């Protein structure tokens, strides 16, 4: 399985984890940004006409064109927590590889080097680069030391059902406890036969052969979660 977790040790002596994001969501984020930029450029080009296409209006239009072409991602990343509008819609964000917020310097480097990632057409170099390292970094990300991660949604507290907890018949290792807890929490995502299949492996623990095995395991899991 592809492990997209990225770990870094931070002050506080613990390892932080973030999920790095692959090319597909980044492509959609870029496409959304492209549409937004296109609309803004179109609107500006209309607005500049009354002020003279080769005069005042044209001059300001070219300055804005430069800003939108080169500085649009930089400004949004630095001032909007690593997110351009497209990235915000996709729930992804740019961050330094020590998981600190992206700075003006790192954002400049990664976005100026976009030119190379775009080569020869439609980000082919960037795509190959992303697919050839575990952090999904395009060349600009490598030079800048940045990552694109998924923005953690505010986590919900663990769902606790009305369940009679059951003390296990034998004492279990930590790792075994945590597998049973995981079984409890993931059982909604598993089909009935698969639940029974998994539960039957643990007959030695539950001493139940039928459907009850599943319920037994879930009750033991609730016990390990501290339900009394």
């Amino acid at each position: 399985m592809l492990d997209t977790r990225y770990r870094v040790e931070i002050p506080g002596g613990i390892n932080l984890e973030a999920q790095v994001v692959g090319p597909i969501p980044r492509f959609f984020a870029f496409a959304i940004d492209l549409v937004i930029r296109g609309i803004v450029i179109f609107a500006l080009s209309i607005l500049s006409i009354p002020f003279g296409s080769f005069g005042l209006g044209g001059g300001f239009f070219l300055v804005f064109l430069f800003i939108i072409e080169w500085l649009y991602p930089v400004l949004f990343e630095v001032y909007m927590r690593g997110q351009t509008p497209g990235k915000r819609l996709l729930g992804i964000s740019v961050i330094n590889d020590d998981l600190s917020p992206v700075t003006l310097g790192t954002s400049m480097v990664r976005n100026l080097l976009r030119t190379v990632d775009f080569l020869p057409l439609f980000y082919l170099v960037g795509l190959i680069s992303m697919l050839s390292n575990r952090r999904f970094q395009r060349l600009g990300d490598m030079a800048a030391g940045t990552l694109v991660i998924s923005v953690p949604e505010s986590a919900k507290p663990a769902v606790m059902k009305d369940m009679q907890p059951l003390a296990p018949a034998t004492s279990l290792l930590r790792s075994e406890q945590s597998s049973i807890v995981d079984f409890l929490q993931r059982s909604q995502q598993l089909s009935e036969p698969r639940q029974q299949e998994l539960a039957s492996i643990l007959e030695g623990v539950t001493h139940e052969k039928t459907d009850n095995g599943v319920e037994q395991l879930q009750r033991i899991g609730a016990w390990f979660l501290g339900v009394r």
Partner: protein
Amino acid sequence: MKQQIFEQQHSAEWQQIEAALEKPAGGNNSKILAEHYMLLCQHLAIAKERLYDAALVERLNNLVLGVYRELYRYRSETRLNIYAFFKRDFPLAIYRHRYFILLSFLVMILPGLVAGTWTYLDEDAVYSVLDGSQVRQVERMYDPQARKLGREREAETDIFMFGFYIKNNISIAFRCFAGGMVIGIGTLLVLFFNGMFMGSIAGHLTRLDYVDTFYPFVVGHGSFELTAIVFSGAAGLRLGYAILNPGQLSRLDALRKAGRDVVPMLYGIFLMLVIAAFLEAFWSSSTSLSIEVKYTVGAVLWALVLLYSFSGRRYESR
């Protein structure tokens, strides 16, 4: 301790932190975050050590990540000190890139000199570098009869030309830098061809005896523009060199270090080219100023740019 009891004991604190993260700047929220950060780290470590379930570990991990990003955000906003940048950071970055700057300069100036000499001596040589319409356009721009110098045919005002120079020149400099990622080859090509084009034009116009329009035009903004292009080449070559010869570091770490080191150069290049665009649009193009004034101001600007560029050595720690 069972997980549920642990959660009961601390859920009030976590909720407080979650609420503070919603509006990190509001009220005394930043104080709450700072005070609870270490405690939160401890809770995460405990939760991992005691094998509490993944949902809780993830929740705490996300909380720590959120607080960490808030606490360390403030550092990054105050770090860009404009005075220190002009006084020290930019000249020091120039000094540290001196060998790359020298190489960048040579790769631009040598083809320029060769092409310039050739087009000066041979009437047809300029057509080997530029096509006919480009040559005619350049000739028209510096025609001594022209009302405004160095201006595109359709341009009506100086402000249009300002936008034009911003868009074109800064884009060229940025692309020149980015070309460094292709082990420096892209940068070398941009420098080489720009040097060759500029040399050919200079040689050709000198041959036509447009000396009194062309050189007073370019001398002023050239100080900022040419220097900035050479710097952008140096920044690109630095990246390429880090990939080619990473030294003691891994290739990725060497590239990352180069990426951090060139940042002051990028800021500086950008600002220099904005100044250059301003000079080129509003100063160089003027026909009402005498040639002597333009040469004098040009000489002063060159002296200032060069003096400033060579001022970084004293900040190098030895």
